[in-house]
C-alpha cells in the first residue's frame, strides 16, 4: 500500500475536493435550498480534511478533534437558521403563483 497514497492523505484529497465542489456549487446556484445544501457539503468537506490532518500523527491530534466537533455543532446551527429563513422567504413567494396552479 506504501506505493499508493496512504489512507490519510487519500481522505485529505477527498476532503479538499469536496470543499472546492461545495464552494463552487454554493457561489453559482440560484435556488436557495440548493445553496444551503451546498454550504453543508462545504462544511463537511472542511471537517473531513481536518480529520485527515488530525489522523496523520500517531495519537490523533486532540486539538484538531476539538475543532471538528465544534465545527459540526456550528454546521447544525447555521443549517437550522438557514432553513427557517428559506421557509419564510418561500412563504412570501407562494401568494402570487397560486392563481395558475389549480
Amino acid at each position: 500500500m506504501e506505493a499508493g497514497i496512504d489512507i490519510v492523505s487519500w481522505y485529505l484529497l477527498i476532503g479538499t475536493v469536496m470543499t472546492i465542489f461545495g464552494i463552487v456549487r454554493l457561489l453559482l446556484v440560484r435556488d436557495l435550498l440548493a445553496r444551503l445544501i451546498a454550504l453543508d457539503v462545504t462544511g463537511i468537506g472542511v471537517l473531513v480534511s481536518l480529520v485527515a490532518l488530525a489522523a496523520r500523527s500517531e495519537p490523533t491530534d486532540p486539538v484538531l478533534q476539538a475543532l471538528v466537533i465544534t465545527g459540526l455543532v456550528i454546521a447544525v446551527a447555521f443549517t437550522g437558521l438557514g432553513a427557517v429563513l428559506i421557509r419564510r422567504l418561500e412563504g412570501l413567494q407562494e401568494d402570487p403563483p397560486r392563481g395558475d396552479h389549480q
Partner: protein
Amino acid sequence: MTLAQFSLGALALVPLLGAALTMVLPHPARRALGVVTSLLIAGLTVPVMISVISGELPELVLGGFEAPLGIHLRGDGLAAVFLGVTSLVGVTITGYAAVLPKSTGTYLSSTAWVPGHPGFWPLWLGCWSGLNAVYLSGDLFNLYVSLELVGLTAVALVALGGRSSWEPALRYLFIAVLGSLMFLAGVGLLVSVTGTLDLQQTRGELEGLEDPTLPLLALTLMTVGLAMKVALLPMHRWLVPAHSAAPSAVSPILSGLVIKAAMVVMLRCWLWAVPVLQGSEWLAWMLGALGAAGVLIGSVLALRQDRLKPLVAYSTVAQIGYWFLAFPLLLPGENDAAQLASGAYGGVVAMAVGHAIAKAGLFTAAGFLKDRCGTDEMSALRGAGAHHPVLILAMGMCAVGLLGLPISLGFSGKWQLATAAVAAEHWWVILVVAAGTLLSAAYMLRGIAPLLLQAEIAEDAPAASPVSVRERVGEIAVLVLGVATICTGLLGAGLSDLLEVGSWW
C-alpha cells in the same frame, strides 16, 4: 484571581447569562434586564481598562487547561480599546432600543405585525458576549467559536427587520458562514503545522520554519474568509441590503461593532499569529489595492444613492477601504520596521474606533428619521430637520468623525496613516486619503443638506406629528454618540500609548 482577571471572564460570560435570562421574561421585563446587563458589562470593562492603562497585562486561563488546548483570555491594549468602544456604543444603543421599542424590528404576533421584537434582546446580548470573547481570546480556536457566535446572532438580528429583511439576512448568512469555514480551514492548516492553537506559541513555531508555503496558504484562506465577513470591496454586496434593511437599532450594531470583530481577528492573525513571511507582501499589496478601490468606488456609489440608509451603508464600505489601505504599510520596509508599523497599526485602530462611534450615531439618526417619517427617501426627508435641531447637530458631529476632520479619532487615524505613508514614501496613500475625504464630504452633504431645507412639511405627513418625549430621549442617544465622536478626538495620543501594551513588537 485579581478583579481584572475576574472581569475578563465575566465580560465574556455575563452577557450570555443575561441573554439566557431574557429568554424567559416578557417583553417589558426584557428591556429592563437588557439595560441592567449593559450597565453591568460597562462596569466590568472599567477594571480591565484601568489595569491595561497602568501598563500590566491581565491574563486568565479558563478551567486550568493550559495551552495548547485551553481557553486563554488576554486583555492587551487592542482588546481594552475595543472593549471600551463596544461598551460605550453598546450602552447607548441598548438605552435607545429600550426607550424606543419599535426600533428593534417588527414582530409577527398572532394577529398582525407588531412594532418592537422581543427577540432582539437575547440575540443582542449573545452578540455582545461574542464580541467581548473575540477581543479577549488569545487563541485561534476561541477566536473561531466567538466569531461564529457573533456571525449567527448578527444574521438573526438582521432578520428581525420584518418581511423586507429576510432575503438580505439569508445572503448575509451564506457569506458569513462561508467566511467562517474558510477561516476554520486556515486554522486547521496552521494547527497541523504548528501543533498549537495559542497565538504566542504559533508565532514562536512559525518563526523557526523554513518552508513558508503551508502557513502562507493558511494565511491566505483566513484572510479571504475574514475579508468576506468584513465586506472588503468585491465582497461587499451583502452589507448594503443587510445594514439598510435591518431595524433601526440593529444597523448601528452591525455597522459599528460586528464588522470590527472580523477586523480584530484579521489584525490578530496578521500581526500576532503569523510572523512576516516571504510571500505575504503580495497579499498585503492586494489588500491595499482593494482597500484603495473600496475607498474610491464606495464613495462614488454612496453619491448615487437616493435613500439615506444605503448611503450610510456605502459610507461603511468606503471606510472599510481605509483600514485595508494600511496593510502594505504594516510590512517592515527598508527603514525602521517597528516605528513605521506601529504608526500604521495605530492609524488603523484609531480610524476603526472613530468609525465605530460615528457610524453608530449616524445609523441611529438615520433609523430614527426612518421610523419617524416612514421612509428614508432623501427627497421625502426634505425639511425634516425643522423639528429636530439637536439631531441635525449630532449628525453633523458624526459626519465630522466620518470625514476625518479635526477633533475626531478619524482625523488622528488619518494623520497617523498619512505620517506612516510619508515615512515609507508610499505617496499614493496620501492621494487616496485626500480624494476619499473630499468624496466623503460630498456624499455627507448629500445626506444632511436636504434636512436643512426649509420645505413646508404637509400637515398630515408623519413627520409633522408632535415629537413624543420618548423620541426626544432617543435623540439624546444620538447626541451622546456625536459628542463622544468629538471628545474621543482629543484622546488620539492616549490611544496610541494604550496600544503599546501587549503589542506584538
